[in-house]
């Protein structure tokens, strides 16, 4: 993708360079050729509508090519491939906190394997920051209160600058780090080299200790919706809307449960705003995402709880 950005940039440079040269040369030549000389008067020209239309339309169509190419690249940049490895990023004044799904945590460094699609799921603990890797030609603002995403595939091993690109206070210019791209075997070695629980396991623990499992049961119908397999599925809400259960939905449901009540359920879930940290939220979201599709016939989210008979499942309490 960086190559494509550079190619587009060079294209624009060429077109702009030509345009600039044309104007510079035209102005210079005309200014010299028609300099004031005794005996030669200026020749009044009203204008030329044809010329005006021509030099409006042609540049406009040239600009359309800029737009289309740029939009295509942008579309690809904002559409992470489905097979991307996910990494959670929490930005705060003035550092980057990284959590791999496998549980590895990093500060200001992100290790990734070469040739692998990586999707970053990012949020901020305080003000707006921006995750900027010039070498990859990518950037995405990181906001408090919601997730934004960014994806890339590193192609050459090495160390690449990571900068914060949205002014965020005193040490905005010190909030840097590195993306460390490694060969797959080196990466695997690095991954193995530290005690860490996979993110969704941390989430699973929190799910129990915070009491989520009391209402969100998967064995019998509880007071809350069964969360098995809900990730990225449509959800029917009380007010008739249907939303997709993505990361932002799960996060919002934990912090602001009354915002989107699932159809057929009462608004009894308490809010966990101020009780869970951003890292804990990431772990919970990762856990919910990992919950597999329930076997066929189990109560799904779209129907009334009373109508679905409880299905015998494994007796392990989630």
């Amino acid at each position, binding site marked *: 993708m960086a190559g494509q950005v550079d190619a587009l940039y060079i294209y624009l440079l060429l077109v702009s360079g030509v345009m600039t040269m044309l104007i510079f040369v035209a102005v210079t030549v005309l200014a010299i050729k028609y300099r004031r000389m005794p005996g030669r008067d200026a020749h009044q020209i009203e204008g030329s509508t044809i010329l005006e239309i021509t030099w409006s339309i042609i540049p406009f169509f040239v600009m359309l090519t800029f737009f289309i190419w740029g939009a295509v690249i942008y579309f690809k940049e904002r559409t992470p491939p489905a097979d991307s490895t996910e990494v959670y990023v929490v930005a705060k004044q003035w550092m980057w906190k990284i959590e791999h799904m496998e549980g590895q945590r990093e500060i200001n460094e992100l290790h990734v394997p070469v040739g692998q699609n990586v999707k970053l799921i990012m949020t901020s603990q305080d003000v707006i920051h921006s995750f900027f890797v010039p070498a990859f030609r990518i950037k995405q603002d990181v906001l408090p209160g919601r997730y*934004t995403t960014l994806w890339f595939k590193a192609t050459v091993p090495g160390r690449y600058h990571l900068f914060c690109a949205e002014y965020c206070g005193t040490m905005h210019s010190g909030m840097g780090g590195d993306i460390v791209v490694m060969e797959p075997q080196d990466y695997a070695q690095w991954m193995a080299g530290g005690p860490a629980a996979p993110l969704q396991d941390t989430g699973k623990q929190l799910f129990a200790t915070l009491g989520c499992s009391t209402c969100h049961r998967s064995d019998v119908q509880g007071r809350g919706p069964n969360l098995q397999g809900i990730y990225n599925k449509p959800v029917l809400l009380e007010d008739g809307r249907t939303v997709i259960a993505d990361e932002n939905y799960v996060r919002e449901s934990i912090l602001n449960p009354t915002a989107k009540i699932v159809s057929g359920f009462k608004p009894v879930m308490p809010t966990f705003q101020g009780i869970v940290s951003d890292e804990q939220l990431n772990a919970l979201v990762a856990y919910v995402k990992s919950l597999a599709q329930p076997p066929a016939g189990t109560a799904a989210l779209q129907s009334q709880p009373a109508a679905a008979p409880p299905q015998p499942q494994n007796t392990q309490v989630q």
Partner: protein
Amino acid sequence: MASTVIPANQAPASTTTNYLNNGHSLKSWLLTTDHKRIAVLYLISVTVFFFLGGFFAMLIRLELLTPEGDLMQADTYNKVFTMHGMIMVFFFLIPVVPAVLGNFLIPLMIGAKDLAFPRINLLSWYLYVIGVLLISHVMLTGGVDTGWTFYSPFSTEYTNTKIVEAGLAAFIAGFSSIFTGLNFIVTIHRMRAPGLTWNRLPLFVWANYATSIIMILGTPVVAITIVLVAVERLFHLGIFDPRLGGDPLLFQHLFWFYSHPAVYIMILPSMGVISELITCFSRKRVFGYNFVALSSIAIAVIGFLVWAHHMFVAGISLYAAMIFSFLTFFVGVPSAVKVFNWTATLYRGSISYATPMLYAFGFIGLFTIGGLTGLFLATLGIDVHVTDTYFVVAHFHYVMVGGVLMGYLGGMHFWWPKISGRMYPEGWAKLSALLVFVGFNLTFFPQFILGYVGMPRRYWQYPPEFQVLNVLSTAGASVLAVGYLLPMIYLLWSLKYGPIADANPWRAAGLEWQAASPPTTFNFDETPVVTWEAYNYDEIDANGHGGSH
């Protein structure tokens, strides 16, 4: 320049009362309603603040000579670039051409005795002064450190600098702007001399008209944004705070809804100046008058539709980004049309190289580069990489300094004889123009490269590999500073020692040149009746004298 035969009804400046010597007391200046005196009051105030903003710029460039933050602390640097931005945007670029040149020239150009609301004009200046007093107090008591864009939640919840007071200063300056725009629109609609139809107006008037539309429609939105930020800061109301149900992106939308059209407030009047300069120093009508006039209106209107191109990576939806990118390319077309028309005006002209014309040439070159780099930023795939880097800094300095400031300086030199009754020294002026052009390019061209290779903006310290380009940029800034200081010196010098100018030393078209240099308080002894088209240089040069009858 060949001196002209002075029409009988206008004696040389030194023997009659003119607006400058019609009353010498401080009160006659501070309570004046004469648009020309108010313009001079503005000239003094904006010049002081330009140099203050420039001083902060020097501090920035000095700090950036070395990669480490070794000249000042990080917090201090953050305050310095914030104050540089706030002062330059709110207290220099937005008012300068309308409040100095517009105030002075518009009544003269349309054959009126004054603006429609002279007392509101004076109020505008006092509001500006209150704004600068407030911002000065803010600076003296610690400054603000949010960047001039004061994004939430940093500005509403996290910084502990004087946001509310600085916001109040900008709010009040905004009303100065609104009243100026209101005054101009009413004046241009209602007070044109008999025979002066819309398509006989000088393009400077068209440009200020379009600017005034933006001023009155856009400024109130930033005013309410400032109010909401202040309210959130003072009462913790959570309008933009996500923890309280608010949305930080709403701030950005409200802010940029004004701040993007604001840049057209800055550039349009300068473009109007360029039209006046190119025509006079080529002795020709402008090529495609209708197109140049209407392009100003087009820029004003389309300029309101593109604000979210400042937010492509902010978290807006993919489709919103595409729409705003597409619309942004539209706004480039009328600007390009102007550049082409000015260039075409040179064809078969009779061109002289007086200082104002040099500034006009400089404008065309630098605005072309600045405008083209705007297209880079409009292109989504590229913007993702270069937004919030020095590429953007270079782009906006090209259009604001290479554009607005060059137009302003060209206009100041062109109308200096009208404003002061004296000519400036041409040799020194040409030297300054050259220094400005060279210094400017040396300062800001390296910043395009810096941005593309990845240096973010608002950085107090940076990785060592960026140093060479930063040093080049600082060197350029030193040259640029000299280029700006010289006119200060020689223009002031000319007030006492410059040759006395006659009414129309450039033999230019335009009603303002039919008034004396400097004009009397009420501009014209008799209201002119206009029977000629704009830029009738063929008639002027055929007649061989400065009148246009």
